[in-house]
């Protein structure tokens, strides 16, 4: 009995070992993808259209959770089995594995895309990916609460001339808590990326535009930390988010906070999930200047892939004006293409317009800082720690920006060795 079991298992193992996958005739493109909303479904539609013209190309879509995207791609590459295409949020993280598109697509192609995406795509003079959509940080607010408090929220272009300042914004948020059922003024994402919006509004940045200098240790940088701490001190932002990891989406959705500092990616989520109150998008306040932070999604090919030609062909197709318009419209994304800046969204066109306007006035550093991935990934957690320590009053805002500067400089030195 036991012996039979042993033999069976051994046989099974041998069969398993020999079952090497057969080589197919068609080209199969392995495409690593992640989804927040419906974009995975839209991609499948687009692939179907593509296959009508290219029946010999098959796609194997490898869907992964965003947190594990790097783990998956890096193991595949290190194991000598890179995917053919991947959707990434920062090509710089994978630069040594990505396919240089300078010859096959050409840098001129980038002229079709908004400028803030260029530093993400161009790494050491090589074009490593194609921009697809962009994201903008911004604020979403509970209309019912602000109406109850009798506060007018700037959400039209006419109101831009007399936009609220940081101080007026903070006072408004305090007043909303007094005059409505909101328990807190603002839910602010636990993310250095979102915090940096204040940094740019204050007129500061992490690095100079050409990445040659660390610029965070400045009066502007200090002011951005200080104001963020003040928002916590005045209990406008509940400390449970930055200190306890409480989910800001939940706080806003449940009506506990009057406003959510997030970005355009929340629109579909809130459209599908909020029934109990009216909500909208507002213009962010201005500090020294106005600013949002640009982010984006890109699709890249891989230099060791077996199907480079087919991959490039699909990259061109996927980023072409018509296909890109379809993708962004149906997924409710802001397009990275300049000629797709006005799209026909089935929902919230006015809100998308606010986000695009915010992007349009953002300084170049708001893009170049975050495209400087090699340094950013090393100090990302330290930025967060230092802001948190300032909220906890363990250090002063001045010390926070000094610490970040020191860390950034030593990491950059480390990188260069």
């Amino acid at each position, binding site marked *: 009995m036991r*012996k039979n079991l042993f033999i069976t298992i051994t046989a099974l193992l041998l069969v*398993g070992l020999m079952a090497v996958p057969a080589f197919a005739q068609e080209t199969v493109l392995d495409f690593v993808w992640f989804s927040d909303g419906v974009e995975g479904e839209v991609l499948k539609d687009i692939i179907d259209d593509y296959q009508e013209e290219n029946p010999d190309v098959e796609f*194997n879509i490898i869907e992964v959770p965003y947190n594990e995207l790097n783990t998956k791609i*890096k*193991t595949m590459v290190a194991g000598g089995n890179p995917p053919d295409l991947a959707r990434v949020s920062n090509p710089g993280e994978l630069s040594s594995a990505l396919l240089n598109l300078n010859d096959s697509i050409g840098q001129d192609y980038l002229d079709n895309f908004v400028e803030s995406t260029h530093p993400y795509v161009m790494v050491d003079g090589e074009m490593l990916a194609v921009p697809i959509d962009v994201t903008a940080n911004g604020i979403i607010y509970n209309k019912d609460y602000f109406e109850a408090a009798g506060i007018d929220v700037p959400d039209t272009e006419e109101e831009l001339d007399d936009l609220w300042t940081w101080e007026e914004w903070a006072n408004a948020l305090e007043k909303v808590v007094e005059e409505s059922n909101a328990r807190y003024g603002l839910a602010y994402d636990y993310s250095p990326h979102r915090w940096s919006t204040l940094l740019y509004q204050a007129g500061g940045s992490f690095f100079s535009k050409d990445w040659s200098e660390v610029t965070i240790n400045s009066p502007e940088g200090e002011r951005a930390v200080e104001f963020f701490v003040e928002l916590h001190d005045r209990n406008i932002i509940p400390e449970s988010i930055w200190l306890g990891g409480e989910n800001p*989406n939940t706080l806003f959705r449940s009506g506990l906070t009057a406003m959510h500092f997030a970005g355009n990616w929340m629109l579909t989520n809130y459209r599908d999930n909020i029934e109990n109150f009216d909500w909208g998008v507002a213009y962010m306040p201005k500090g020294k200047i106005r600013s949002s932070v640009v982010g984006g999604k890109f699709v890249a090919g891989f230099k060791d892939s077996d199907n480079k030609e087919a991959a490039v062909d699909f990259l061109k197709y996927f980023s072409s004006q018509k296909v890109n318009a379809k993708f962004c419209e149906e997924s409710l994304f802001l397009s990275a293409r300049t000629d797709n800046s006005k799209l026909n969204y089935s929902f919230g066109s006015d809100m998308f317009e606010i986000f695009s306007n915010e992007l349009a006035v953002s300084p170049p550093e708001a893009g170049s800082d975050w495209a400087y991935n090699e340094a950013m990934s090393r100090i990302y957690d330290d930025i967060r720690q230092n802001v948190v320590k300032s909220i906890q009053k363990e250090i002063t805002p001045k010390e926070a920006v000094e610490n970040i500067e020191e860390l950034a400089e030593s990491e950059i030195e480390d990188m260069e060795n």
Partner: protein
Amino acid sequence: MNNKVKNILWYVILLSFSLIFVLPIIWIFISSLKTSNEIFSWPPTILPNEVTFSNYITAFSKGNFVTYFKNSIFVAVTATALTLLINSMAGYALAKFDFKGNKVIFFLFIATLMIPLQVIMVPIFIVLRNLGLYNSLWGIIIPPAATPTGVFLVRQYMTTIPDEVLESARIDGASEWRIFSMIILPLSKPVLTALTIFSFMWRWNDFLWPFVVLSTESKYTIQVAIANFVGQFSVDWNSLLAMNIVAMIPVLLVFLFFQRYFVKGIAMSGMKM
């Protein structure tokens, strides 16, 4: 009389203590029956205002969960059978034979537990690929089957089996395999039961490993599929909760079915030492 009161008191203590363990899980379950809006409403409701199975329906309609379930069952069952066989063999050798290298091999097994999977994942992946096990269910069955925990557990248990039992069998001329399969294994039922329960759960709940090895949707296991509910900016909590409740059921059934084999072996309870 006094005894009865004492007994009841014990039950009350045990019951209230078990509440700490079960209440959070009941909370997850109840939440999974609420609409998404009710889950995120304030003030929270304890019981759902209206019971809905929509979370389950949405979760199941995203992708091919029947396939994922089949894959998970296949992996968990096959890997458990393999683990039981090779771990009990190794544990037996380490517990009952005084051979050269015994201690070294034993500590080697335990030592590998101390390495975080994250840092050796890439080299394991390269090995797998060269053996043609990449993107194959066997690639997630074979490598983790030689569990150090299992070997350790079995070895420790088998040291408690008296040597006389083996010696008398050897004098009777039984082969080593026969001694192992006919005497040692039946005597080790409790520890093999524990290992069955564990191994099934380990393989069923494995995420990182299958995630790295599998690259075709039709081969995904349930945990790999569940993880995809997490995006960059948003998490589909409703589907995540619902799928986790469903994914727990097989593990629970395996536990309930096997835990009854935690009984003293006849030879052990009646043995004179």
